[in-house]
C-alpha cells in the first residue's frame, strides 16, 4: 500500500511538473578568423507548440564590431521545435566575444536564450580576399558643423563570392542629418566586382557622436553556372565615433557665409551685354566644387555709384553640383563698367584653412545718358539765353456733356479684345464653319461618285446572302442555298457593271470573275430558278457548296 501511494505521488509530480525549454546553439565554424563570416543556428525545444517568434532582431544585441542578422526561422506546423538561423561576420578583435542572453518571444511563451560565445583567433587560416566584404568609406578626421561629408559603403565581391544585391540599410546618427544619395551603384572597375551605396552626412551640432550603419548584402558563390545560383545574405555593421567641431573663429573672414569644402568660382553670366542706363540686367554667379553648396548664404553685393543691386530669386541645379547666385543689377551710369565684385570666403576642412574666392568681374557697355552728364553737356553757360518761345494762345472748349457720336460708344475700362468670350466665340464659330465646309465637301464627293454607295449596298447584300447561304446549307436546303448564292452574286456583279440585279446572268458573272466555273454557275442558276423550270437542278455536294461560297466571298473582297 505504501509503495502504491509513493508511485501515485511520483506520477502526480510527473504530470504536474512542466518540462523545461531546451535551447541549443551552434556556430559554424566554431573558431573564426577576424572578419570571417559565420553562421549561428539556435534550436529551441519546448513542451508546447511554438510557432514563429517575433522581434528577434530587436532582442539580440551583438557585441561591438560583430555583424549579426537573422536569416530565417524554420517552423513546422504543430511542432514544439523551432530553429533560427543567423548570418554573421566576426569582429576584427581577437578573443572571446559574447552575445548577451536574449529572449525569443513566441506567441504563447518567452524562451530565454543563454549567452553565446564566439571565439576569434588569428591562428585560423582565412583569406579575406576570397569572401565578399563590406567597407565603410568615411574620412577619418574631425568634422565641422554644417559640412557636407560624402561617405559610401562599398560591398566588394571576393574571389569566390560576388555581391549581387543589398537591402535593409539602417542608420543611427546622433547629431547628424543623413541622406542616401545613390543606392546599389556598381563599383568602379578598379575596385572589382561589387556594389556601393553613397550617402551624405551633415553634422548639426558640436561634440562627439556615435554613427552606426548596418545592412545586408546578398552574395553568390563564385562557381557561376546555371545550377549554382544559390545566394545567401551576409550582414555588415559599422559603428564609428565621430568628432564634430565648429569652424574655427580664428582667421575666419568676415564675409564667410558658411561655405565648407573646396569650391571653384566658375564665372559670371550677364543677361545682357549692352544694357541701357536704368535697365535691369540679371547677373548669375556660378559656384562649383565639393562641399555644402546648399548651405551657403548668397554673398552680399552692395549698391554703389555705378550699380544698384536688387534682390533676386536664385535657382539651384542639383544635377550638376553647382550653385547659382542671382542678382538684378541696374546700371546708374553709361560707359564701360565692370560688374560688382562677388566675393566668397570658404573653409577647407582638409587643410583647416580659410580661403577667399572672387568671381572675375565682367565688362559691360552701358548705353544711354546719365541725366547729370546730359545737363552738363547741353547747358552751355556762355551761350545766350534763348528767348522763351511764345506759346499759342489756346483755351478749353465749352463742355458738351450730351454730345454723343453714334459710332463712338463704349467704355475706356477694357477693350473688346479683353472681353470674356470674344475670342472663344469667334474660334467656335470658325470651327463650325470649317466643320460645315468639310461636311459639304464629303457629301459632294459622295454625290459625284454614286458607285461608292452602290457598291457599299451590294457588299451589305452579299454579306446577308452569304449568311443565308450558310444557314441553308446547315439545314440542307439545297434550293435555298442556290437562291442565296445566286442573289449575292447578282448583287455584287450588278454593282460592278452598273446594271440591275435581276438582269444579271451567268455570263455577267463570268465577265466580272473570269475564272468562275461556268457549268457550276449554270447548275446554281438552274437550281435557284427551278420554280420556273420543269427539271430542278442537282443539289450541290459539300465541296461544290464550299466552292460556291468561296466565289461569293471573292466577289465580296473585290475592291
Amino acid at each position, binding site marked *: 500500500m505504501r509503495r502504491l501511494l509513493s508511485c501515485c505521488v511520483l506520477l502526480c509530480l510527473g504530470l504536474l511538473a512542466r518540462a523545461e525549454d531546451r535551447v541549443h546553439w551552434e556556430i559554424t565554424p566554431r573558431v573564426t578568423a577576424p572578419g570571417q563570416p559565420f553562421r549561428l543556428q539556435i534550436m529551441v525545444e519546448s513542451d508546447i507548440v511554438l510557432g514563429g517568434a517575433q522581434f528577434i532582431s530587436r532582442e539580440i544585441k551583438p557585441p561591438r564590431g560583430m555583424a549579426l542578422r537573422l536569416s530565417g526561422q524554420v517552423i513546422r506546423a504543430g511542432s514544439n521545435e523551432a530553429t533560427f538561423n543567423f548570418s554573421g561576420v566576426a569582429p576584427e578583435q581577437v578573443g572571446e566575444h559574447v552575445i548577451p542572453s536574449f529572449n525569443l518571444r513566441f506567441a504563447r511563451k518567452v524562451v530565454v536564450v543563454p549567452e553565446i560565445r564566439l571565439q576569434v583567433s588569428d591562428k585560423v587560416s582565412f583569406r579575406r580576399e576570397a569572401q565578399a566584404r563590406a567597407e565603410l568609406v568615411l574620412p577619418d578626421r574631425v568634422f565641422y558643423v554644417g559640412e557636407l561629408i560624402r561617405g559610401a559603403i562599398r560591398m566588394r565581391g571576393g574571389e569566390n563570392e560576388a555581391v549581387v544585391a543589398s537591402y535593409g540599410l539602417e542608420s543611427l546618427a546622433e547629431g547628424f542629418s543623413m541622406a542616401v544619395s545613390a543606392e546599389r551603384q556598381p563599383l568602379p572597375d578598379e575596385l572589382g566586382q561589387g556594389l556601393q551605396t553613397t550617402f551624405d552626412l551633415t553634422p548639426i551640432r558640436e561634440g562627439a557622436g556615435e554613427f552606426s550603419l548596418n545592412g545586408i548584402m546578398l552574395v553568390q558563390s563564385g562557381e557561376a553556372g546555371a545550377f549554382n545560383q544559390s545566394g545567401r545574405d551576409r550582414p555588415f555593421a559599422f559603428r564609428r565615433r565621430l568628432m564634430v567641431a565648429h569652424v574655427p573663429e580664428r582667421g575666419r573672414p568676415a564675409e564667410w557665409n558658411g561655405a565648407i569644402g573646396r569650391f571653384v568660382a566658375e564665372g559670371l553670366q550677364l543677361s545682357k551685354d549692352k544694357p541701357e542706363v536704368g535697365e535691369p540686367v540679371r547677373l548669375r554667379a556660378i559656384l562649383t566644387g565639393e562641399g555644402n553648396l546648399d548651405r551657403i548664404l548668397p554673398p552680399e553685393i552692395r549698391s554703389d555709384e555705378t550699380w544698384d543691386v536688387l534682390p533676386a530669386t536664385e535657382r539651384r541645379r542639383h544635377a550638376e553640383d553647382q550653385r547659382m547666385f542671382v542678382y538684378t543689377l541696374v546700371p546708374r551710369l553709361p560707359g564701360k563698367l565692370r560688374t560688382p565684385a562677388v566675393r566668397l570666403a570658404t573653409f577647407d576642412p582638409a587643410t583647416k584653412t580659410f580661403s577667399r574666392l572672387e568671381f572675375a568681374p565682367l565688362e559691360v557697355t552701358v548705353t544711354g545718358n546719365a541725366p547729370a552728364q546730359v545737363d552738363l553737356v547741353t547747358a552751355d553757360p556762355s551761350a545766350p539765353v534763348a528767348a522763351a518761345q511764345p506759346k499759342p494762345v489756346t*483755351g478749353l472748349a465749352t463742355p458738351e456733356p450730351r454730345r454723343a457720336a453714334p459710332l*463712338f460708344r463704349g467704355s475706356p475700362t477694357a*477693350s473688346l479684345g479683353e472681353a470674356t468670350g470674344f475670342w472663344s466665340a469667334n474660334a467656335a464659330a470658325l470651327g463650325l464653319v470649317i466643320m460645315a465646309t468639310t461636311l459639304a465637301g464629303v457629301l459632294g464627293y459622295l454625290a459625284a461618285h454614286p458607285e461608292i454607295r452602290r457598291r457599299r449596298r451590294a457588299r451589305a447584300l452579299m454579306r446577308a446572302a452569304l449568311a443565308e447561304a450558310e444557314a441553308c446549307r446547315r439545314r440542307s436546303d439545297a434550293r435555298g442555298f442556290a437562291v442565296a448564292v445566286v442573289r449575292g452574286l447578282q448583287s455584287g456583279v450588278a454593282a460592278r457593271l452598273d446594271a440591275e440585279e435581276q438582269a444579271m446572268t451567268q455570263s455577267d458573272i463570268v465577265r466580272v470573275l473570269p475564272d468562275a466555273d461556268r457549268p457550276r454557275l449554270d447548275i446554281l442558276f438552274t437550281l435557284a430558278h427551278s420554280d420556273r423550270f420543269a427539271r430542278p437542278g442537282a443539289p450541290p455536294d459539300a465541296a461544290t457548296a464550299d466552292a460556291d461560297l468561296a466565289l461569293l466571298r471573292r466577289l465580296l473582297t473585290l475592291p
Partner: protein
Amino acid sequence: MKSFALLIFCWLTALAAADAPSVAETAYARGDFAGAVELWSGEIRAEGVTAGRLAALGNAEWRLGRKGRAMICWERALLIDPRDPVANAGIKHGLDAGGVDRPKPTAVEEYAMFLTADLWLLLAVAAFWVTVLCVAVPRLRGRPASEANQWTRVVALTVLALCFPGLWGSRSLDARAVIRKPEVSLRLTPTQFGEPLRGVAEGDVVRTERPLNGHMRVHTADGKTGWVRAGEIEAVRGPGLPADLDQKAAP
C-alpha cells in the same frame, strides 16, 4: 387745328427742355467747378461713361488745378471718341499753355486714332468673317464663286490688312499712363533710394514699359527713360473716373 397746335407746342417744349443746360453745365458756367465735378461724376456713375461727359469732367478738373485727373479724363474721352473736340482742345490747351507734356504720337498711333480700338477690332473681325464666308458659302452651296464674291473677298482682305496697323497703334496707345502726383521723380533705378534723374510734372503723359519692384519703367515725352513708383501714375486705359490716389486702402 387746336389739337395740332397743342401737339406742336408740346414738341417745342420738349426740344427746349432738351437744349436747356443741365445743372452741372450751369454750375460750370458760373464757376462752381467743384460742384460741376461732383455732378458730372454722379452722372457718369449713374448713366455710364460717354466721351462728352468725360471731356466735360476733364475741363472742370483742369479748372480746379488737378492736371493729372483732367488729363486722365481727356485721354479716356479720346479712347471712346478720338475726335471729341472738347477733349482734344483740353489736351492741346494743357500742352500749349498748361505745362504738361505728352509723347508725340507715332505714325501708327496717328493712324489708329482714326477709330477706337474696339472699332478697329470689330472691323478686322468683320473683314475676316466676310472673307471666311466668301470662301465657305460657295463650297457649301456646291457652286463656283461668282465675280461679286471674288470682289468681296478682295475688299474684305484689303480692309483686314488696313486694320492691322490700327490694331497695333491702339495697343501702343493703351500702353500710356498719366503722372498723378504733383512732385514725381523719374528715378534711375526701381528702388526706394533710386537716384532721381529729373522731375516729371503732374499731368504728364508717359509711355509705360514694364513693372519691377513696385515701379514702372516709363518713357517721357522728351525721350527720357526711368522708373516711377506704380502708385504715382494711372494707366490711360482704365475705369471711367480717375482713381482717387489719396484714398487709403481698407484695413
